[in-house]
């Protein structure tokens, strides 16, 4: 498929702050791409450069193969849904939605027809004559969406579209937006700092940190094969352990972490024996073993003492001291056959298993502090 948006080596500086540094990105037609990162990582600036609101210091922006770097927003075939929606406070809902058509020179009757249709789609026909200030947040969001879509842009840009919504509405809107994307087949580019949102909605995710792209991939790729401890930690949660390489045996890297031995499947490069490396293990990849359970020879079996239990309703997170610097966190799903009461209590020694393929090894430990976020 053709790339509808291409960003080539774009950089942007605000005063002395480097917002975006040499970013290149290609977005396919019809794709739902999310740019994910903490605040100040340059994700919004990148989006605003696609929209034409920021002019890059260096690099080019291409839309549909055409260089639009020098075009102002009003000449670009993209529309943006702004954070906090930026609805026109002095106009009615209908006028807000019809604004783009009115500006494009559409006749009053054609505009009215399309606005009516849009209002029906977002189920706000009864609010056509209301002002934005009279709408609930969820209604405002739908108006903003309709206003951005009514001009049939080639790309829809979404700047933190859920940030104003409460948790419950957010979940519903995520599904709604995803459905909308599937229905109209338009290219969506969304910016968010919320990793769940990125994982749930996107076809591909671009993770940014400090103005640079860290990794681009599908949600599964990013989750299962994070390129760095930063990505591992930013998408979902991860146990990050600093271990020492003991030996490398036919595609498996054997490391020592405290008294335990943890094996990781080698992917590509292999570290030197004796090197300090970082291991990333997702809490849900760790299995609590029954006392007498037998695991296959090639599966890691670790022993530790339960230090704390955190009840999450449908699951329990166990903090486990396995003798290293950082306690290990295990996500244990509760089921109809097993409630929290049947779990071993704090202070008990237990065995856990983890597949070497679920252990991601990072050679470079210099730039990221181990950190666990519950």
């Amino acid at each position, binding site marked *: 498929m053709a790339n509808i948006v291409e960003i080539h080596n774009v950089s942007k500086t605000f005063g002395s702050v480097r917002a975006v540094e040499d970013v290149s990105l290609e977005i396919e037609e019809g794709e739902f791409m999310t740019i994910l990162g903490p605040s100040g990582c340059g994700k919004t600036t990148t989006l605003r450069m696609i929209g034409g*609101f920021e002019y890059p210091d260096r690099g080019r922006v291409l839309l549909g193969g055409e260089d639009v770097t020098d075009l102002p927003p009003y000449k670009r075939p993209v529309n943006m849904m702004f954070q906090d929606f930026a609805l026109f406070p002095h106009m009615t809902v209908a006028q807000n939605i019809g604004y783009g058509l009115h500006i494009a020179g559409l006749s009053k009757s054609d505009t009215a027809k399309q606005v009516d249709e849009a209002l029906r789609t977002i189920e706000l026909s009864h609010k056509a004559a209301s002002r934005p200030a009279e709408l609930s947040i969820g209604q405002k969001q739908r108006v903003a969406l309709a206003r951005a879509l009514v001009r049939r842009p080639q790309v829809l840009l979404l700047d933190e579209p859920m940030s104003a919504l409460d948790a419950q509405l957010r979940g519903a809107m995520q599904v709604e937006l995803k459905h909308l994307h599937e229905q109209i087949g338009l290219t969506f580019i969304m910016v968010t700092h919320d990793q769940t949102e990125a994982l749930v909605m996107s076809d591909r995710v671009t993770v940014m940190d400090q103005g640079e792209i860290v990794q681009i991939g599908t949600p599964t790729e990013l989750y299962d094969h994070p390129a760095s401890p930063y990505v591992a930690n930013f998408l979902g949660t991860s146990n990050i352990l600093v271990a020492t390489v003991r030996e490398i045996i036919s595609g498996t890297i054997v490391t020592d972490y405290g008294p335990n031995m943890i094996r990781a499947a080698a992917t590509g490069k292999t570290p030197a024996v004796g090197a300090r490396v970082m291991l990333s293990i997702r809490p849900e990849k760790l299995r609590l073993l029954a006392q007498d359970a037998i695991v296959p020879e090639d599966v890691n079996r670790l022993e530790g003492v339960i230090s704390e239990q955190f009840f999450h309703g449908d699951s329990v997170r166990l903090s486990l001291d396995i003798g290293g610097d950082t306690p290990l966190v295990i996500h244990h799903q509760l089921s109809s056959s097993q409630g929290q009461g049947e779990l071993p209590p704090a202070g008990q020694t237990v065995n856990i298993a983890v597949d070497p393929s679920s252990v991601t090894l990072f050679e470079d430990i210099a730039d990221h502090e181990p950190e666990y976020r519950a």
Partner: protein
Amino acid sequence: MAIQQAQIANVRRETPNGWHFKWAGFDITGRALAVAAGCVLAFLYIPIVTLIVFSFNSNPITRLPLTGWTFDWYEKAFTNSNLLAALGNSLLIAAAAVVICLAIGVPTAFALDRYQFPGKVFFRRLVLLPITLPGLITGISMLNFFSMMDVSLSLLTVMVGHGTALTAIVVTNVYARLQRFDRRIEEASSDLGARPWQTFIKVTLPNIRNAIIGSSLISFTLSFDEIPVTFFLTGRDNTLPMYIWSTIRRGITPEINAIGSVIVGVSIILLLVSVFIMSDPVKKAGTGR
């Protein structure tokens, strides 16, 4: 929202010893507030009411007791050609001053809000200076300036004088509004295909309209009853305040009371109109949800 307010109201009623004192069924706090408000209103409006009352009094000397009802003074006022000329001049000057204030003030406010230039802070303070200067000083300095430039004094010089003295009002009001203005709605307009001038007319202007109308009205009023600057800068033409002032030296005539009453009436109408125009369209549309 409504429920919340009702709850707050309940809490207030339930704590009579807080700051709502009641005695024998009377709401003393409420009474005291009403009396205080009445005193303030009386202090503000009794002189004006007096003026209106005497404009209808048949005794040519402004003195109690009232002697009888008459419209004569209004008739006299509106057949006095000197007075009418002065009134016309005043209206003309005020209108022109407003135009000058807007023409200079609005672009200045935009420049201050949106552009960085060296000496910006200094410039902002400098623009505001004329409003703090006594009219006397502005008047004298402008008189010096005009005579130096060999400009003969006329209504035109008065208009320029008022314009410079009052521009600061427009600048402060519009600048304050722009500071609170959400620039993202301009970006949204641009995003939806509007060229900069379309964005300005359809989005920016409607949202700062109130500040512009409000400051225009204030400037108009201040110009309308301005004496010091006018005194120095007018040629042979008279303005209404100057005319009244010169007449009053021979004693207050009921004619002046009459024209004063008319101005009060017009002011009240203007006030109502401005309240209507400037009432926030968002609020005006109700608070239904």
